[in-house]
């Protein structure tokens, strides 16, 4: 019995399984991003896709029925959206939004997910950094001197620390690590 051959077969089996699962999984899960204009053509097809754009000016939220109606627009085209759920935290006219859903058969979109693209959430404000008005050569020279100096000192210290005997590495080791690693 040749184990290698068996393993080869086993790995082939796994690869085929991955391929099959990935392919079928992909068929159901791949979501294409459309612009509102493209979405207007596709809403009749009944397929699920994502539309990215801005929330239009008219937003209607019915708390009793829990229905949210709005339009997603890119300035040129707009698609009416119906979402059965509450508006997300920072939802409002003009906000960037990604709508995931399928056409309702009448030119509108029934959203199953509403994802806010909120630039304020994780993005930092652009910082205005002035051009470096410093003597780069001078700073560079200091850095070089510092680097080489430190390296030489450290080499010397390591050499000294090693002399007692390399066999007992653990004792002096903690010492050296503490010196190098921990913030003072």
């Amino acid at each position, binding site marked *: 019995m040749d*184990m290698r051959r*068996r*393993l080869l077969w086993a790995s082939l089996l*796994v*690869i085929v399984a*991955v391929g099959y*699962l*990935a392919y*079928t*999984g*992909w068929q*159901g*899960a*791949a*979501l*294409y*991003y459309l612009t509102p204009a493209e979405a207007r053509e596709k809403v009749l097809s009944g397929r699920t896709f*994502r539309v990215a754009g801005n929330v239009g000016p008219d937003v209607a939220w019915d*708390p009793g029925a*829990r229905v949210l109606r709005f339009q997603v627009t890119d300035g040129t085209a707009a698609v009416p959206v119906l979402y059965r759920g*509450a508006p997300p935290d*920072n939802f409002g006219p003009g906000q960037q939004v990604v709508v995931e859903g399928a056409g309702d058969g009448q030119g509108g979109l029934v959203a199953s997910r509403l994802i806010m693209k*909120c630039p*304020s*959430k*994780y*993005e*930092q*404000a652009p*910082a*205005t*950094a*002035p051009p470096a008005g*410093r003597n780069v050569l001078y*700073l*560079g020279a*200091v*850095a*070089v001197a*510092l*680097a*080489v100096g*430190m*390296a*030489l000192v*450290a*080499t010397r*210290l*390591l*050499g000294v620390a090693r002399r007692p005997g390399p066999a*007992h*590495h*653990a*004792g002096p*080791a903690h010492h*050296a*690590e503490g010196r*190098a*690693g921990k*913030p003072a």
Partner: protein
Amino acid sequence: MIQLSEVLVLAGLLACVYGGGVLVLGIARDSKRWLEQGRGAAVAGAVLCTLASVLLIYFLAVSDFRLAYVANHTSRSLPLVYKVSAFWAGQEGSLLLWALVLSWYGAYVARVTWARSPVLAARALAIMLGVEAFFLFLVAFVSSPFRVLSPVPPDGMGLNPMLQNVGMLLHPVTLYLGYVGFTVPFAFALAALHAGRSTGAPPGRARHGAARGAVASADGRTGAGPGWLYLSRSFTLWSWLFLSVGIILGMQWAYVELGWGGYWAWDPVENASLLPWLTATAFLHSALVQEKRGTMAGWNVVLIVITFFLTILGTFLTRSGVLSSVHAFAPSGLGGYFLGFMVLVLLGSGYLVVRGWSLVEETRPLESLLSREAAVIVAEFLLAAFALVVFWGTVFPLFAGLGGGRQVSVGPSFYLRAGVPFGALVVMLLGICQVLGWSRSRAGRVARALAVPLALAVLGAGGLTAVLLRAREGAGVSAGSGAGAAIGPWAIWPWAGFSAALLVAFAGLAGVWRDLGARRSSTGEGWLGALAGLVDRNPRRYGALLVHLAIACMVVGFTGSAFRQEAAFTLQPGQSTEAVGYNFTYRGLEATHLPHRVSVYAHLEAARAGRVLVLRPEKQYYPNYESAFSEVAVRGGLYEDLYTILEVWQHDGAASFRVIREPLVAWIWVGGYLLVGGTLVIAWPRRVAPGGRPRGGAAARGRAGDLRADARADARGDARGDGRAAARAGGGKGGGGG
């Protein structure tokens, strides 16, 4: 001061470049003088990085808003702990953190590991300094935390309220500690390949590998043999621990802070941390096989290279904003540098691996398919398959976008259908593995050892599934969807998930039970004394058992999500409604005014079986942010969580809620604690006193003796063939909380 910190970063970069350069020279010319210089430069780099970081922390602590980084991530009113933690809240600081941690590891290798193997340490240190130089280059020239603002703002932007959370305080730093640590085994693997190839002499063995002689590969070719694994083992373990803890903290943060009731969304950034975890887990186990059986050397080299690559990819995905994600940071100019570096890593390590392949080629055939090493190999195929699916789903949208095609993304269902089955198979295999011995096991014996735990697991899982199904039906979920019979076939999957998890737990506990009985009858100790004795004698075995128990707990938690129930409703004050098996009564809105925020919360009562829970889901308003932040209210225990979100409130007092009943979620966090405990048992460094005697133990229990003792214990386990030797193979996280 600010200029000084820039100079420090620059000097650190120069120290790395200089150190890497002299190490390469010293290796090429075999010059001890140059090598010593390189060691010194590594320590100098660590000191310089530390000083620069201390300065940044100082600037953050005193709110020096001349720095753009300080102004962008903190404000005066922020508590000090969040001011300091802003060190890793942004891109620039986290790049410096990468370099800082790596520089400490470099100093450790230069000082401690060097004494054990100068040949490998020199080469590994050169590689580590190269990686460190890359990150310091980014910090110095591309994305510096020390950039200054020209009009100094009176106050900073503050830290995003969603990041003001204890989990978020620790999540990034633990994840980074995990990411960075894998640089060390990666560097040592390549070092071993290079050393073995260019000197022709086995690098690990003659000089300092006496402890490994017993377990080295059969023909003595230890080119990339256990030497590098042994030297970097503690780095590997600690990094795996930090990576695991980072992922679990991230899940917990998402659960309590993001307010959608889940902990894992298969978001690209989450996947970026899962990918190296999967390959690192595979690496840990095949490294063990190499240590015990002398095989799988090639696997190990390839796995650690891939793991390192994935940590860089993970940093890149998180920090470059190339993928749309809830976590990703703003787009920055980092992408090109990272891509270039990743190509360099792949080419460089690919070259070394191909050149040195003859050193790690498999020469020993497997003895039997019914052995622990065979199970590990199969589990690694499955983990690799899982990782491949996750990789594909995460990265394909990137390629599709680059190719000019339509932007595309994949939803969680892709991962659940294509990836999670592999994870589930790994967990099943792990259960079986607990009773397999090294080398070969007799089928009858395995079946006998497995019979009772398997029967108990299937029965217990069936009971658990039935209880959860009843709870679901009681809540009227199935009534709406038709007959209860429709639930039957579907419930097979969670039943299988629970069975696999319980099998892992029961088979492991049965092994401990047998060991305890044997020890008690031979030593006459009490239960606790016997347990302590066993753990003390073989901490790696019992630590691994604990980690596998942790995985079982987590899989129970993941599988429980199949029974999740969700409902949404709008109520006027005083109104009640039935949902997800509870009777909810909404009493009204209240508000609290704090200096830095205003909270509006709903007073919601949930009654079930005569017990009333009071929940206060909130909306929080911060002066610096125009949007509101939902703060969920969660009550629960080991059986289930009740998770409530205040979605919208009206001025007339009406409030819209979403409520989720989440069975067994708490077991994920329980598993997290067990995982930490188990890994600590395995990895806790045992100090060796100057005389070579370990603290409070027999003389044979030093670091080197440890391996010998393990090998002996295993040899006995093999001879008996009853699978009592260290039980660890195939650890995988199976479920997924869509």
